[in-house]
């Protein structure tokens, strides 16, 4: 394919994706920006709720995350080339343990909410029809604020998150780098064992002291 025809195809596919967005709005489905916005406001709502204890907060946030994140695609993307080495049961176990890993590590922070807010800055249509939503985590202004991008892909008519990019660092790329070496050295079993151990130790850790 020539360069210019590739450019045309790219533009055409981007236009189609943009039309898809419009169609989605017309049908009353959430746009990618709405998915991220609603995720943020629901999570902040739970974090602020003084009537909930830590465990209740964690459970609710997990349910919200399950709704917004496509763990199946995410798992495939982080394991990447090595996905072919995983048998179907290993794939299922990986998905489960990886989801638990994210929930254990990020769930530890439910009690340290310091009034952060999320501002949606805009969205960009990407190749493969994905959409990146730009947002800023407001933590008191200036250099303390954090830029967070969410990449979403449509699945069964719903936009779901397949990557989170914090200050330019993609979570998919980062986990892929880590998992690659482990699978190369010890195969899928080694990665699954490490994840299980990490999750078990994370869950037994006492929450950080409220200083």
């Amino acid at each position, binding site marked *: 394919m020539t360069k210019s025809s590739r450019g045309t195809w*790219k533009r055409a596919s981007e236009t189609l994706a943009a039309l898809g967005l419009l169609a989605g709005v017309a049908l009353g489905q959430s746009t990618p920006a709405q998915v991220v916005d609603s995720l943020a406001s629901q999570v902040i709502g739970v974090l602020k709720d003084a009537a909930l204890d830590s465990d209740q907060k964690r459970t609710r946030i997990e349910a919200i995350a399950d709704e917004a994140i496509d763990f199946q*695609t995410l798992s*495939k*993307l982080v*394991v*990447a*080339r090595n*996905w*072919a*080495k*995983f*048998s*179907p049961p290993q794939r299922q176990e990986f998905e489960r343990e990886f989801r638990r*890993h*994210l929930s254990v*590590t*990020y769930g*530890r*922070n439910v009690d*340290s909410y310091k009034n952060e807010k999320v501002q949606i800055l805009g969205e*960009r249509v*990407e*190749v*493969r029809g*994905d959409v990146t939503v730009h947002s800023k985590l407001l933590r*008191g*202004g*200036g*250099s*303390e604020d954090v830029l967070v*991008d969410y*990449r979403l*892909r449509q699945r069964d008519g719903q936009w779901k998150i*397949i*990557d989170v990019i914090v*200050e*330019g*660092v*993609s979570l*998919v*790329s*980062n986990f892929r*780098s*880590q*998992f*690659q*070496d*482990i699978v190369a050295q010890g195969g899928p079993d080694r*990665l699954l064992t*490490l*994840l299980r151990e*990490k999750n078990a130790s*994370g869950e037994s*850790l006492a929450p*950080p002291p409220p*200083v």
Partner: protein
Amino acid sequence: MSTRPARLIVLVLAAALGGCAGAQPPRPDDDPWEGYNRAIFAFNDAIDTYGLEPAAKGWDWVVPDVAQRGLSNFFDNLRFPLVLVNDLLQARFHDAAATTARFQCNTFLGGLGFYDLAADFGVPAHVQDTGLTLGRWGIAPGPFFMLPLLGPSSPRDAGGLVADGMLAVYPYFVTIPGLTAGLGAIDILNRRARVLDQVRDVKAASLDYYTFVRNAYVQRRWKLINGEIPTAAEQEELYNDEVFEGYLEEGQ
């Protein structure tokens, strides 16, 4: 001023070590010096775990948040010459004007830089250092390179750090006993205290802390230099999940 010849030496050094092909996409897994890097990383991590982190926790406990924020602004403001020189070297004149306005505003109206008034007026700080200048001039970073005490880097960015050191303000007051060392210690302690939670989370969230740091450093430097939008090829590499299907039986 001795900065000109020094800068030249730094440039030649970085060019020699890093090669001159800046347009290659990031390869966060290329690590020819991994053995050395991991050893230095372990050393740095031990110093942090047993020295710096406990001290920063103490600092965080004693110094109120508003004072930490003020100190962080104060030290950022002292980076004015470094940021301005690199804005100019990159021909980013709009940034250079913003940098100058920020320095004047925050120094004279923001209490010697303790308050970031300019950010309130819609002129926020931007990330800037000599390594970025070299990168934007087309110099490739070279292999990932862990520096003792200073952390993740590359030959190019390490060269940049030398120039950054010369463009810093307070080391020039080294003749006043204790001032430079004292300010340096406060800067480091305060900076570490600002990221206590983040570092703890990263350690908890990573299966291999070293690889986490390497990947994050390479990705972030690349995006600072080449912009946030990944090329179509990078996006294919990261997000095409169809090529990962299929399952190989054992022994195949």
